């Protein structure tokens, strides 16, 4: 059964159409990479999944629970409280990390589980340390994010997202703000997550990652899904001209 089901999603900013009739489903344990040129609506689509953006049309179902749908031509959402509970089922990793600068790495990770889920502090810290170990930063537990490199920050941000034990992890261009030589350490962590069957949706410009790690690649162009399928198919035998153009421009760049 699909963990995430998006049907006919429409999202406009003012008069501008960002996402226009996109349907996407993600199976449990699957890693889906969304690729495409800037402004194609990839990030917007991702942000609709955890309600950072409200859709203007279509419906979204997460783990069998429909939380946004259309009724008499209008989009309705579940009540705020329900939405909060549902969006806590998703973990988000941002391009610019968005770590809380006034908290140590460990506090960044434990704050939400303690406050939102009521996990006892000692237990949250234990889980937090396990997660820090998983991303290879156990020695940074008491450091403030300001003292870390970009790659380390992003790994802490991944651990923070995982700490809520989400059904699905969302990555919004997680390596785009990093120096090329340190994207590798973040991608490595994501690869390990993927191999451990974490359900992931990754908006990325890292074609190598999309090709090697993902189970499915979605190519978006001007707010629509132009082509989707197996990574080998997408990269080795692209059908649409737009995808061919995109791939050749990315490779040559």
């Amino acid at each position, binding site marked *: 059964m699909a963990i995430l089901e998006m049907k006919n999603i429409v999202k406009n900013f003012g008069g501008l159409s960002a996402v226009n009739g996109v349907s996407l489903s993600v199976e449990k344990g699957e890693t889906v990479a969304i690729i495409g040129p800037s402004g194609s609506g990839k990030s917007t689509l991702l942000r609709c999944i*955890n309600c950072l953006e409200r859709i203007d049309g279509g419906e979204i179902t997460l783990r069998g629970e429909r939380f946004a749908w259309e009724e008499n031509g209008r989009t309705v959402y579940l009540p705020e409280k329900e939405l909060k509970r549902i969006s806590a089922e998703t973990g988000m990793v941002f391009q610019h990390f968005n770590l809380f600068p006034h908290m140590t790495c460990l506090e960044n990770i434990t704050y939400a589980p303690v406050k939102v889920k009521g996990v006892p502090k000692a237990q949250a810290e234990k889980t937090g340390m396990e997660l820090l170990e998983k991303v290879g930063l156990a020695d940074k537990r008491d450091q403030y994010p300001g003292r870390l490199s970009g790659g380390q920050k992003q790994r802490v941000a991944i651990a923070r997202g995982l700490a809520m034990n989400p059904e699905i992890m969302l990555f919004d261009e997680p390596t785009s703000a990093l120096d090329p030589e340190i994207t590798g350490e973040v991608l490595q962590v994501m690869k390990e997550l993927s191999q451990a069957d974490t359900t992931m949706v990754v908006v990325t410009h890292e074609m190598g990652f999309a090709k090697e790690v993902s189970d499915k690649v979605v190519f978006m162009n001007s707010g629509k899904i132009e082509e989707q399928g197996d990574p080998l198919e997408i990269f080795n035998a692209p059908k649409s001209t737009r995808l061919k153009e995109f791939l050749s421009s990315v490779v040559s760049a």
Partner: protein
Amino acid sequence: MAEYIGMIIPALMQGAVVSVELFCVTLIFSLPLGLVVCLGENSRIRIISLIFKAYVFVFRGTPLMLQLFFFYFFFPINMGIRMTAFATASLTFVLNYAAYFAEIYRGGINSIDRGQYEAAKSLGLSRSQTLFGIILPQTFRVVLPPVSNEVIVLIKDTALASSIALVDIMRVSQKIVNRDGSLVAYVIAAALYLVFTFFMTVILTRLEKRFSRYDEQSA
């Protein structure tokens, strides 16, 4: 000369204590009140936000001296309430400074990156958890320098309370100068203001250092 100074010092010190008391009372009440006003201004309920905005507009837009005189006469004459000069001065200073602090806080809150709200939301934090756990602690760091500045201004503003007959160091020194025809009292008062300003500057600088511990390290 030393004898003269020794003679006027006790009275000046008494005045200084009153000034410091007014200073402390103003800060203790106006710093938190400023936060309430700031949150009121940011309220999603329009009427509440309007009331607090009007309050800030009035208290920042009129002279502190005028506000002092207004309350000095307003309570006994219009309300029939007797108030000491100290109570009147405290009330006026608290209301006035809260308006300034509210604006400083508002600027601080607005300067926090939108990504912080998004991260908080994506973790399922409620509005109040986001405000008190994520946004305000960072705001505190940002507003410390402008708040420090206001604190230093306040030290000198307390002298205005002498105009409603509060026997602070300003009024005491003024009386002595008028009586003795010597400027020594003013010089001593100035020295005391400077000592106090210096003392506060040291404390505030320490606070700023302490709260910058999580700042970005320049690589």
